[in-house]
Structures are given as structure tokens and as C-alpha cells.
């Protein structure tokens, strides 16, 4: 894992003191809310429905036990004993006091964490494949590149006042677990025939009001030219963005309006200038960073056999555990989606359990996923039973990865000031309706994603089944969408028809899934059936 050097630490510490001063001046009345708001947002501090909300960055979703314990301590000391993992692999606290926010940031800085650029018109937390460095299906760990990008895009003056927010996602695997084409810039690390590493570059994706899937604009960018190319992308957008119209400021609109070809031409033209000036960091800097991500000292000669005699453990094993690149090891997924629970929420005590497990069984590493779950990336197969027992005792052993109850839901109207409708109660009702694990397994891979407003933090456009909360004359209403995907088979979900109230949309999902069970061919996931037969049979089932 990356560790701060003296410069990183000095920058973060200085930022804490700067914010302490800004907060004191706000409380003393020397700054108005209009003056203070952009300053607090640059430090991840929002004002939500019930209190201030602090969003803490977890770069590329990677953290260690020391950091997780600090997140638990913050939950207990400054909040109400829990946190909420988000779809950008960050964590949010919902009950923060302004007067304590600088102390929280100071505590975070002691474990090399911060909330910088988790809000505002900046390059946001860079998200990544949660299996990076562990999975067998990647060509290399992409996180050194993510860290390099994080460093060069943090506080860079040219990127400090962007037209809007800008989101990167990075992977090095064939399976896209990071939804890269739904990002302003998606990067896939690939290797060419000469054995050189480079990136497929996708640009102009995004959700929100206008969903766009990013087109490929470069099929092989030599990896050590990444920063120059990214800078060219940001500069073209910065130059042409519609700063006059909030709905048209995101880069996806520019790429769409210029067309991918013309946008690419301009980026390449700009890039030629950067290339000539050789702006990329020297290879030694990449090597310095990459050294932090060297694989942990995996033992060799470990057995691959696992004792499956406990049937509950065997169920968990089959659902929550993924193959690891090292023989004798496995990737263990921790569900934060208990039936009837709040997706992504975790108590301080549970955080500590997970931190202990990471320290003891996973080379002190943890991952947060964009699907609001956690991962122990490097567990010896022989230790899986002990891990499962500890998770089970902590209420963290649900068996639903990628099933109907593994629902992504944004905070919605229960917490978020921009919301039109509540998301969480809907997720709770759906997971309760489909609680039966045999039914869930029969329904197979199914990604339900719920957003409480058009901003789409709950990724409804990328849901096999997406739900969007709208405000219909002061009452909550829900639109149902079908057919989206955030994976390598990316697609945007389409609205089925008129919306529903809360119970109505749960019924509509049940009708949709009953139709799927009737109409599927052997081995087909819901998404496969939908793509084969189209929306009409489902509309008929829902509205007919």
C-alpha cells in the first residue's frame, strides 16, 4: 500500500490547519456561508438534511486496518456510531458538527487519509477494480498508476476550478468491476504484443441527467505518457465546456456535442504539445510508487482444498469468495447488504472486526467496492473458515454478492438534500421480499441500483434493474429501468413506462423477475434474457 512521504504528510497537515482557520472564521462570522461553502466542499464537507456530512476519500478503494480503525473511531467519537460506504469507494458520515470537522480531518491525517477533492469541481477520488493486485484476470496491478494520477491531479492549479467534477476509474482486468465506461475518463491497462504496458482510454462517460457511455478514444497509450494524455483531455474540456449551463458542463456533453472523433482529434493535437514538452513524471517516480504496491509475501506450497463440511460456510464460499492469482489464496467479499438493512452502512464495531480480520488474515489490506461492499483481498484458503466465523458473529456473513439483494442504493431522501425520493426503504423492501436465498440463487446475477434523484449516485442507469426516485407533486414516485450494465458488457438502462409508488415498484420488480424465470433460456442471466427478447414481454408483465 502507498505510504505518505514527508511531502504528502506536510500537504495534508497544512490543509487541515488551513481548514481549521477557515472554520473558525466562519463560526466567528468573518466568512459568510456563500464564502465558506466552496471552502468546506473542497474538504468534503456538505450540509445535508439533518447535519453536516463528511465524505472521506479512500483512494482506489484501498485501506489498511489502521485506517479502518480510525474510521471506526471517528464514527464513534464524532458521529453516531456508523458510516456509509459510497459508490465511489468513499465513506460518508452523516452527523458531523462543523466545529468538530477540523479535528476529524486532523485525526484522519494521522493515518494518511483526508477528504480533499471528495466534492466540488475537481478531480474526484479515483476509483479502481476492488480486486486489483489480487485477481488472476489482470495484467498488472493498476493502482500505482491510480496513485500517480491522484498525486498529479491533487491541488494542480489548472484542475482546481474545473467546469464540473471529473471522475476517473481504472482497471487492468478483462472483467470490468470498476464501471470504467461510465466515467469521465476510464482507463484499462493493457499489454501490447511487444510486451509493453499501455492504456485503453475511454472518455466522456457519465450518469446523471444525461447518461453516456464513454467511447474509446485511444486503444493504446504508452503507460508512461498517461499524465500528458490526461492533461490534454482535461484541457480540451476545460477550454470548451459550457460553463454557462449547469446541465451541460460535464465532459460527456462536450464529447457528445463535438463527436468522439473531433474530441479525440483535439485531444491528440493538445497531447502532441505535452509530448514535446515531456510533462510526464520520470519513470523513477512511477517505480518509487509502484514499490509500495509490490505483492505481499505470499506463502508457497499452500493447499487449495477447503473443508466444506459446514453447509453455511460452503454457501458463503460459493458466493462470496473469488479466485486469487496466488495458489492457496482467495479473495473474500464482505456483504454490507443484510436483508432489510441499509446498503453500505457499517457500524464502528463491525469496522473494527473487519480491520482485525484484514490485519490477521489479509496482509493488512482491505478494499471498498463501488457496489458498497468490502473485500479482504488476500486470504489463505486455509483461513477462510475462521474469517467466515468472525464475519458471521459480526453480522457480516450475508451470502448475496451480485444477487437480487446486493442492491446499490444512494442515501436518498433520508439524508440527501438533493433527493426527490427515498432510496433506502425501497432497497430494504426489495431485499426483504426476495430474502429467500434459494430464490435469490435461482434468479442468479442481478444488479439492482437505486438513485433518489437524477444525479444517479446510485448508478440506476447501469442497473440490470434501475430505479430512479422522482417527486410527483410532493409524493415519492419511482421510475423503473431495465437493461443497464456497468460491467464489460456495458449498456444504459431504459425506462419501462409510467412510475410507481414504493410498494408498486417492488411489485413491478417481482413481475419482471417472474417473467424472466418464465422466459429465460438455460444458463441465461436476467440481463441476457432482456437483451435477447427485448423490453416488450417485461412491459406486458408489469403493465399488462
Amino acid at each position, binding site marked *: 500500500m502507498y505510504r505518505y512521504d514527508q511531502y504528502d504528510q506536510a500537504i495534508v497537515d497544512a490543509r487541515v490547519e488551513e481548514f481549521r482557520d477557515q472554520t473558525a472564521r*466562519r*463560526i*466567528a*462570522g468573518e466568512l*459568510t*456561508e456563500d464564502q465558506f461553502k466552496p471552502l468546506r466542499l473542497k474538504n468534503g464537507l456538505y*450540509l445535508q*438534511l*439533518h*447535519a*453536516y456530512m463528511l465524505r472521506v476519500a479512500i483512494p482506489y478503494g484501498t485501506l489498511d486496518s489502521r485506517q479502518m480503525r480510525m474510521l471506526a473511531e471517528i464514527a464513534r467519537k464524532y458521529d*453516531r456510531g456508523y458510516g456509509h460506504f459510497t459508490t465511489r469507494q468513499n465513506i460518508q458520515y*452523516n*452527523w*458531523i*458538527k*462543523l*466545529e468538530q470537522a477540523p479535528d476529524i480531518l486532523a485525526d484522519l491525517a494521522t493515518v494518511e487519509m483526508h477528504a480533499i477533492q471528495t466534492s466540488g469541481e475537481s478531480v474526484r477520488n479515483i476509483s479502481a477494480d476492488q480486486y486489483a493486485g489480487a485477481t488472476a484476470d489482470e495484467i498488472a496491478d493498476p493502482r500505482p498508476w491510480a496513485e500517480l494520477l491522484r498525486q498529479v491531479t491533487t491541488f494542480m492549479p489548472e484542475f482546481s476550478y474545473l467546469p464540473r467534477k471529473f471522475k476517473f476509474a481504472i482497471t487492468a482486468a478483462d472483467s470490468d468491476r470498476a464501471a470504467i465506461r461510465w466515467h469521465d475518463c476510464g482507463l484499462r491497462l493493457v499489454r501490447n504484443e511487444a510486451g509493453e504496458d499501455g492504456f485503453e482510454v475511454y472518455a466522456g462517460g457519465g450518469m446523471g441527467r444525461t447518461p453516456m457511455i464513454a467511447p474509446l478514444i485511444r486503444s493504446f497509450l504508452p503507460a508512461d505518457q498517461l499524465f500528458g494524455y490526461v492533461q490534454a483531455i482535461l484541457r480540451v474540456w476545460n477550454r470548451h465546456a459550457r460553463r454557462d449551463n449547469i446541465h451541460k458542463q460535464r465532459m460527456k456533453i462536450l464529447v457528445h456535442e463535438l463527436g468522439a472523433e473531433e474530441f479525440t482529434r483535439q485531444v491528440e493535437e493538445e497531447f502532441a504539445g505535452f509530448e514535446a514538452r515531456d510533462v510526464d513524471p520520470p519513470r523513477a517516480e512511477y517505480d518509487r510508487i509502484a514499490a509500495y504496491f509490490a505483492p505481499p509475501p505470499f506463502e508457497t506450497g499452500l493447499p487449495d482444498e477447503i473443508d466444506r463440511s459446514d453447509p453455511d460456510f460452503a454457501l458463503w464460499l460459493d458466493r462470496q469468495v473469488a479466485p486469487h492469482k496466488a495458489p492457496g489464496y482467495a479473495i473474500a467479499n464482505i456483504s454490507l447488504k443484510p436483508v432489510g438493512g*441499509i446498503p453500505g452502512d457499517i457500524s464502528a464495531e463491525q469496522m473494527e472486526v473487519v480491520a482485525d480480520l484484514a490485519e490477521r488474515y489479509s496482509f493488512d489490506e482491505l478494499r471498498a467496492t463501488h457496489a458498497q461492499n468490502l473485500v479482504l483481498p488476500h486470504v489463505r484458503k486455509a483461513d477462510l473458515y475462521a474469517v467466515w466465523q468472525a464475519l458471521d458473529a459480526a453480522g457480516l456473513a450475508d451470502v448475496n454478492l451480485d444477487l437480487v439483494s446486493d442492491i446499490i442504493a444512494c442515501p436518498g*431522501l*433520508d*439524508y440527501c438534500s438533493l*433527493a426527490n425520493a*427515498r432510496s*433506502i*426503504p425501497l432497497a*430494504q423492501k426489495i431485499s426483504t421480499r426476495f430474502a429467500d436465498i434459494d430464490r435469490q440463487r435461482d434468479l442468479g446475477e442481478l444488479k439492482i441500483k437505486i438513485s433518489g434523484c437524477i444525479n444517479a449516485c446510485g448508478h440506476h442507469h447501469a442497473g440490470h434493474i434501475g430505479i430512479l426516485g422522482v417527486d410527483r407533486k*410532493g*409524493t*415519492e414516485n419511482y421510475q423503473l429501468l431495465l437493461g443497464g450494465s456497468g460491467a464489460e458488457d456495458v449498456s444504459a438502462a431504459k425506462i419501462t413506462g409510467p412510475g410507481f409508488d414504493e410498494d408498486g415498484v417492488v411489485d413491478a420488480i417481482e413481475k419482471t423477475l417472474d417473467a424472466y424465470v418464465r422466459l429465460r433460456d438455460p444458463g441465461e442471466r436476467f440481463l441476457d434474457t432482456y437483451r435477447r427478447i427485448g423490453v416488450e414481454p417485461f412491459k406486458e408483465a408489469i403493465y399488462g
Partner: protein
Amino acid sequence: MKLLLGNDLKTGAVVWWTGRDWSLHVEDAMDVGEHGETIARAEEAACRVAGAAVIDAEPGEAGPRPAHIKDRIRALGPTVRPDLTLKPADPSVGSWVI
């Protein structure tokens, strides 16, 4: 009727204008009539609240009930964590919000 609400500047807690001061409880809120904006600007300038806003509400026996669900959720707390609301022991609060 019109109510004035805001977030306490230091704690962020949702507070309601009572006519003299701010209260955590919507039951204490008074009808601000046409004066809401003026009070809001003065209270914001005095750094007591942030995000002050005038909202519609209906009078009721138990006190005012905000017209919009968002403001009722603000008055009570998150519907999904009844233990964290202002009335954790009251089983009827759900129907008050919805």
C-alpha cells in the same frame, strides 16, 4: 402557514424558528407569515444558522406539519433509522412523515 427552518451553524442540527429563538422541535415552530425571509437573513448574518429557508406547513393539534415530505423528514430524522430520530420511542412517527 409558513415556517422558517435552518441548520444550526455549529452543529448542523435542523432547527425551527420559534418567534424568539431556534428549537430542535417542529412543534415549537411559529407561523412566520411574510417575515420569514427577513428573519432568515438576519439570523444568518448573526451566524446562528446556515441554509435558512421558508417552507409551507399545515397547522395541527400536535403542532405544525410541514407540507413536503422532505421537510417532515428534516423535522424528524431519517425514516430508516428510527433510533436516531427525535422521537425514537414513538411508533406513530412513521405515519406522520409519510
